């Protein structure tokens, strides 16, 4: 047992230093180079993620898989809050709703094909986000931040209570023993294959998000985040923009939720509730909201550190983690990524530069 614990400690350190190290040493060097920090950090993270199953013991690969799925979940919140400035305290509603939805598909309809489950999960997330977002965000006049944050929080809380009380959904215990995800006759068991499958999905979704936030639509989102009223006076349909990005966020959360349900093999009410909703806020704030890679790094570090702390400081680890989070949020409001990333690059540019860059495609 102590050997296992050592391994956990060593691996967790790898995870932490692997992505924390550039954060500590590189800022001065990178600052002068301008424009190039993000791709380097992204490349490093991807590299580490790719080799991880080769150096990790199997049970840690299972843990790493969970972290990658949560990173996907974090991306959904980052789009909604970090890029569009919508304070969603109920992002787990979409995550959990999709998780429950696909669990029911497996339990009651015997559907486990990845080709059906993932689109279904995304669709459930999308639908839930359209319904809740339509109610909270659409209207002739913009809704206040308080209204939106309390509305999403309430939605998430209510869904949690509903699941706890509903016998069909398994009540407090949730839905256990979800069979493995399948592709034809192949079954995705926990381990390296599942890991690489979710990593591939994360990379694809990440690239799509990156495309989106660096487009002219991303510029509109930046305007929305900084001054919603101002851009309405330009003629933007600000509420529509918000509902759209909220729906995109819900879709990604749904995708993550369905992967999570099949990976864990069960779903339970917490997946819908305030705990998961708050956790994802912390991932993003910790890593750096408004940068996609910040959301991923925040998830990895918080989950890695909690894993390590809970093993080594069984009694006090939540307090240590809490203090750590507070320190980062107080002294680095833009998250850990701000150690290496300058303001200019974080905001970045939008669309293809036609003449200044000279080499853009039409």
């Amino acid at each position, binding site marked *: 047992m102590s050997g296992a614990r050592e391994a956990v400690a060593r691996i967790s350190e790898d995870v932490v230093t692997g992505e924390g190290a550039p954060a500590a040493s590189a800022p001065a060097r990178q600052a002068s180079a301008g424009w190039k920090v993000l791709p380097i950090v992204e490349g490093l993270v991807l590299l580490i993620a790719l080799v991880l199953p080769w150096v990790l013991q199997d049970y840690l690969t299972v843990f790493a898989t969970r972290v990658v799925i949560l990173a996907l979940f974090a991306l959904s919140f980052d789009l909604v809050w970090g890029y569009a400035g919508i304070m969603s305290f109920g992002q787990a509603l979409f995550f959990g709703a999709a998780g429950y939805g696909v669990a029911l598909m497996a339990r009651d309809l015997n559907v486990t094909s990845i080709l059906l489950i993932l689109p279904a999960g995304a669709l459930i997330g999308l639908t839930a986000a359209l319904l809740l977002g339509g109610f909270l965000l659409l209207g002739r006049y913009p809704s206040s931040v308080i209204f939106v944050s309390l509305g999403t929080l309430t939605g998430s809380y209510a869904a949690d209570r509903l699941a706890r009380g509903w016998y069909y959904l398994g009540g407090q215990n949730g839905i256990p023993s979800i069979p493995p995800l399948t592709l034809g006759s192949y079954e995705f068991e926990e381990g390296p294959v599942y890991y690489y499958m979710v990593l591939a999905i994360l990379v694809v979704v990440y690239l799509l998000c990156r495309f989106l936030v660096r487009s*002219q639509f991303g510029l509109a989102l930046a305007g929305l985040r*900084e001054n919603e009223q101002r851009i309405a006076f330009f003629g933007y*349909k600000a509420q529509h923009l918000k509902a759209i990005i909220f729906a995109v966020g819900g879709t990604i959360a749904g995708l993550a939720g369905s992967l999570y349900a099949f990976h864990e093999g069960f779903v339970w009410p917490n997946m819908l509730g305030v705990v998961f909703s708050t956790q994802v806020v912390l991932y993003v704030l910790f890593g750096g909201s408004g940068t996609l890679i910040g959301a991923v790094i925040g998830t990895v570090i918080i989950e890695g550190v909690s894993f390590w702390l809970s093993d080594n400081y069984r009694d006090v680890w939540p307090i240590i983690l809490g203090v750590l989070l507070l320190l980062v949020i107080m002294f680095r409001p833009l998250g850990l990524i701000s150690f290496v990333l300058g303001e200019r690059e974080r905001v970045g540019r939008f669309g293809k530069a036609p003449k200044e860059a000279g080499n853009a495609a039409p």
Partner: protein
Amino acid sequence: MPLLEAQGISKVFGKLTALDGADLTVGENEFHGLIGPNGSGKSTLMKCVAGAEVPTTGKVSFVNTDITAFTPTERARAGMSLKFQITSVLPTLTLYDNILLALQAQSSLFDLVLSRTRNRLHDQVMTMLTQFRLADRAHDAAAALSHGQQQWLEIAMALAGKPRLLLLDEPTGGMSLEERRVTGELLQPIKQHCSLVIVEHDLGFIRDICDRLTVLDQGKVLASGTVAEIQANKSVQEIYLRRA
């Protein structure tokens, strides 16, 4: 037919009557100054026209359409634009992106996601920046500009969508004398395609660029007419110009 016609606009905040049946008429290609002592209701009238406030009673028509119940977005799409009193450029974005943000407001979602209008809008962005003497700083963050330059950037943003009516709330607030003079110069060329309603404390500035003036006092219109008529108006002199 006037471009903008606001009739009998009243605005009551609790017990305070900020506007009491004010009228404002602005013709095509007219620069119209809105003046009056502090608290006379200038800014409130401006906000009711722009859609930032909903008037308690009264009617606003713009290009023969009743826009009283239009949201700011709908007004912008009808051809009305507003520069806020408090500078509200987007400080972290570059000047270029600030203007692009204003210009692309009416691009379709599809075009925005695929970044299809940026090439087409590039020349317009640079024209606006050049016109407002900001082209050499196109890729600086707006936060790095002086207060006066931020005001210009904001006017440029407000003009980017080629509005038919521009509402300027205290454009020269906090500017140096030289900056005020330049602002006047920068505004002159837009007369060819745009009307202007301007709230301003600097009467010299107003006299120099405006064709007509409306004087408000305690929420009511005291007088309205050409600059010469207003200057000759006895009650205006008593209530306002004397003090200035």
